[in-house]
């Protein structure tokens, strides 16, 4: 009997999903350890404790596919002498490596905002840390649910 009944198809689909889930558990994506994540942030801040505020990190709450996730960051700053954002770095605590990208601004940037598209290996927290010319450091973080990780893709 060749014709597949609806029940057969459903059974097969369920089996495939279970197999896939099992596989996913068997080969959990590599995750940077918490210490490496904190060390990467510390390297960037020079040990200065980040304050909350001034930084707005924008990325989706949930994505089906982690292979290309839009992320943008905007920092409140006059971007002139005395109130200048030098650099904003993005970190991810659930990727094989914690660093993602670091945006370097100048007064000619006009505003301290930038965006890109990133890979997320699994559900995790993404952090944006802004370092000002006066040495102060501000940060924002967002957690994102990822259905299918993007680093091995």
């Amino acid at each position: 009997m060749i014709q597949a009944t609806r029940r057969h198809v459903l059974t097969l689909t369920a089996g495939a999903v279970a197999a896939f889930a099992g596989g996913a558990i068997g080969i959990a994506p590599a995750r940077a350890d918490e210490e490496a994540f904190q060390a990467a942030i510390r390297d960037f801040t020079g040990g200065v404790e980040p304050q909350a505020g001034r930084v707005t990190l924008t990325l989706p709450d949930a994505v089906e596919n982690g292979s290309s996730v839009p992320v943008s960051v905007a920092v409140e700053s006059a971007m002139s002498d005395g109130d200048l954002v030098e650099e904003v770095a993005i970190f991810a605590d659930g990727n094989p490596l914690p660093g993602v990208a670091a945006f370097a601004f100048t007064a000619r940037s006009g505003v301290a905002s930038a965006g890109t598209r990133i890979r997320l290996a699994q559900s995790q927290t993404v952090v944006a840390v802004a370092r000002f010319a006066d040495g102060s450091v501000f940060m924002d973080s967002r957690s994102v649910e990822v259905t299918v990780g993007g680093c091995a893709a």
Partner: protein
Amino acid sequence: MSSRPRVSVPATAASGDIIEIKALISHTMESGQRRDASGNRIPRKIINAFACTFNGEPVFSCAIEPAVAANPFLSFSARVTESGTFRFTWTDDDGSVFEAEEAIEVS
């Protein structure tokens, strides 16, 4: 494989305007985390840096890690006060540098 840069810059602006710039380059951004069919790690090969200057002065740059998606896309801003040329460079792990230029008329 790699390298067809595309940038979007407004053709004209008023002096003092803050304009948005978008830059994209075709590149696989091989992360160094993947393995081939025989289990060997595929070597990392990414665009690791991007820079934008205006009339030779730095505007914006970016250090890029393997966590940036294939065909890396960047958006950022610039304040323009004079006509001139934006110059964009992308640096590959293998040392190649890809370049693009866009002129803007500022009144």
